[in-house]
């Protein structure tokens, strides 16, 4: 399928949206899990370090033989506290001890590989000096994340006298490393998931939209006038299958309309060309010399006059058909069927001089119709019946109610017509085999016009007939109301 330049296909749009959704959900999940792992690590580390510090401090208190606050106050000095700071310092953790003013009394860092302690943050130190056992915060030394814990220095964890604070800091480099490794793993996993997901999504979308492409191609073929191509997907139960079926329906309807249009044009041309042949030939023969003979001139002129009248008749009927088809010139009113039919029968008897016209009374009904059109319909049908019935036969007219509509029928005991004629009867210019034998050549538009007039009044028309057994035409007209 080719789209105009600069337009994005539906597949691309869906894949793009789908990829964005996939990426954002994957990112959200990985961010959440990253954050969780981080939290777990920190909690773990914090409790681990605090737990390690506790016995060391107790041991120091014992070592210094501190039993009461007074003895403890005497021991707050660099010399006494240095061992504690050193004991609390390990390869990844360094401790410093601060006095009540926040000044560093002792630092545990001895070896170069031990981390450098961050300078004490007085905001947090203040909290610890106020008795908070759980002060933990972040800091940065040389752009490296460091976790800092503060432990108030006192005899018992709950005693009110605080002599200073121990600041322990630990590098987070190891956690970072683990998370980084984890992160890179996650990134590749995310990449794989994304690629796979997008590919799968693309395939799925393509599969779903595949029939749309064939539908588009078919549309294009039809636009070129080739109705033989139809969308093949009729087994699909989803929306696209539905679309395809509706589409098929539409194509069939269009094809029918197209065909009848084509036939109409071909037939119209044919009907116009035949009299034109007569005219042209007659003129040519006259010009070649036949005009010198007054008798021949007169004969050919009469023929040409007939042909011209035939052309005019065809044009008139064509105009009448198109006028009825294109306009709303129907002036409907309430018509009492009894009185209407009574008037019509009088006209009908004049028209059918060789036949008997019989009116079979039906129920009392009020029609909604244009009286002129209704009369024209009946006259057209009657003149057909007269034309194709033998002398002394009976033509009967009657009606009945179908609930919402009245069905009016006109039956003759004429020659009838075969199946083939019956199917093409209402087609413009169609003439049945018996019509060709007829003396008066119509334009072949009478029944087309009749049907158009019936349909202009929201009715429909059909014919029952077989060769040699007469013809009955039924048509419906809407009812105003039913009077019993």
């Amino acid at each position: 399928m080719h789209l105009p330049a600069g337009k994005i296909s539906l597949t691309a749009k869906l894949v793009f949206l789908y990829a964005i959704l996939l990426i954002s959900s994957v990112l959200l999940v990985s961010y959440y899990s990253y954050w969780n792992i981080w939290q777990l690590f920190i909690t773990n580390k914090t409790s681990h370090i605090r737990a390690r510090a506790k016995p060391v401090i107790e041991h120091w208190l014992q070592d210094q033989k501190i039993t009461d606050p007074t003895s403890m106050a005497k021991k707050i000095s660099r010399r006494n506290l240095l061992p504690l700071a050193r004991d609390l310092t390990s390869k990844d953790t360094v401790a410093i001890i601060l006095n009540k003013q926040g000044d560093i009394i002792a630092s545990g860092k001895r070896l170069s590989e031990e981390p450098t302690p961050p300078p004490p943050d007085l905001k947090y130190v203040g909290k610890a000096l106020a008795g908070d056992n759980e002060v933990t915060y972040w800091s940065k030394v040389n752009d490296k994340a460091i976790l800092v814990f503060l432990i108030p220095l006192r005899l018992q964890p709950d005693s009110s006298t605080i002599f200073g604070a121990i600041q322990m800091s630990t590098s987070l480099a190891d956690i970072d490393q683990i998370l980084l490794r984890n992160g890179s793993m996650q990134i590749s996993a995310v990449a794989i998931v994304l690629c796979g997901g997008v590919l799968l999504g693309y395939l799925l979308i393509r599969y779903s939209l595949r029939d749309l492409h064939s539908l588009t191609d078919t549309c294009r073929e039809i636009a070129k006038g080739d109705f033989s191509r139809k969308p093949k997907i009729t087994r699909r139960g989803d929306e696209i299958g539905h679309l395809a079926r509706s589409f098929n329906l539409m194509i069939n309807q269009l094809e029918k309309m197209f065909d009848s249009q084509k036939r109409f044009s071909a037939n119209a041309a044919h009907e116009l060309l035949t009299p034109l042949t007569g005219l042209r030939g007659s003129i040519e023969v006259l010009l070649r010399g036949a005009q010198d003979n007054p008798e021949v001139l007169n004969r050919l002129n009469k023929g040409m006059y007939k042909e011209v009248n035939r052309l005019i008749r065809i044009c008139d009927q064509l105009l009448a058909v198109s006028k009825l088809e294109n306009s709303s010139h129907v002036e409907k009113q309430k018509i009492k069927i009894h009185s209407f039919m009574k008037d019509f029968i009088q006209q009908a008897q004049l028209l059918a001089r060789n036949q008997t016209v019989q009116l079979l009374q039906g129920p009392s009904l009020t029609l909604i119709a244009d009286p002129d059109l209704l009369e024209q319909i009946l006259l057209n049908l009657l003149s057909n019946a007269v034309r194709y019935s033998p002398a002394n036969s009976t033509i009967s007219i009657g009606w009945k109610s179908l609930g919402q509509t009245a069905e009016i029928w006109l039956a003759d005991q004429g020659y009838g017509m075969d199946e083939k004629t019956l199917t093409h009867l209402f087609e413009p210019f169609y003439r049945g085999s018996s019509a060709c034998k007829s003396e008066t050549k119509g334009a072949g538009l009478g029944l087309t016009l009749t049907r158009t007039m019936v349909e202009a009044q929201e009715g429909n028309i059909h014919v029952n007939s077989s060769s040699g057994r007469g013809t009955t035409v039924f048509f419906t007209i809407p009812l105003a109301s039913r009077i019993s």
Partner: protein
Amino acid sequence: MKQIQILLVEDDPVITEFLRTGLGYEGYAVSVVDTGNDALNIIRDTTFHLIILDIMLPDMDGFTVCRRIRNRELKIPILMLTVRKEVADRIKGLDSGADDYLTKPFSFNELLARIRALLRRAGNIRESARIIQGTLVLDTNRREVRRNGRQIELTPTEFNLLKLLIRHPGRVFTRETLLNRVLGYDYDGGTNVVDVHINHLRQKLRDRPPILIRTVYGVGYAFHPDET
């Protein structure tokens, strides 16, 4: 010379009328029937040199008539007339046994030309290129005119005028007919053009009494051959 018999199978009265009249004027004997069955019946008893067959007939189509005629192994030339111009129809017509095909509305001149061609092919007429009338010899192929062996230079219009007159010795042509046939139906000028051409023609032919191209007063002109 025996008369050429043409059977016209056509149901449209006006077309029938002009074809009968026009072909009659050209010297053909025309019989007319308006159904396929009548056509098949009449060719059983009568011999025709050519059939002009319309495709749209009330009882059967022209293709069927054509096939039935060919099934009887009759080799009569058949010229079909139809409104349909589609190639498929033409192929169908020719395949059903027609020898030629003309679509309506056709030019009568073309119809005549095709009839002549069909008759020539069937060997029914030997249209000589040379028309000899008395001392006058007209060669239509070489467009040459000689009188008593002496060549006469003519303009195309004069040649066509002479050809028309010489082909129908004795027949009186009105000035209008001569004008239409020689200068075409579209020519709008007056008929005295014909008199001018006739005068030129007489001078070039050294036409002295008893003259070849005679004036028929109040009507037109006629050709009468002289004795050799």
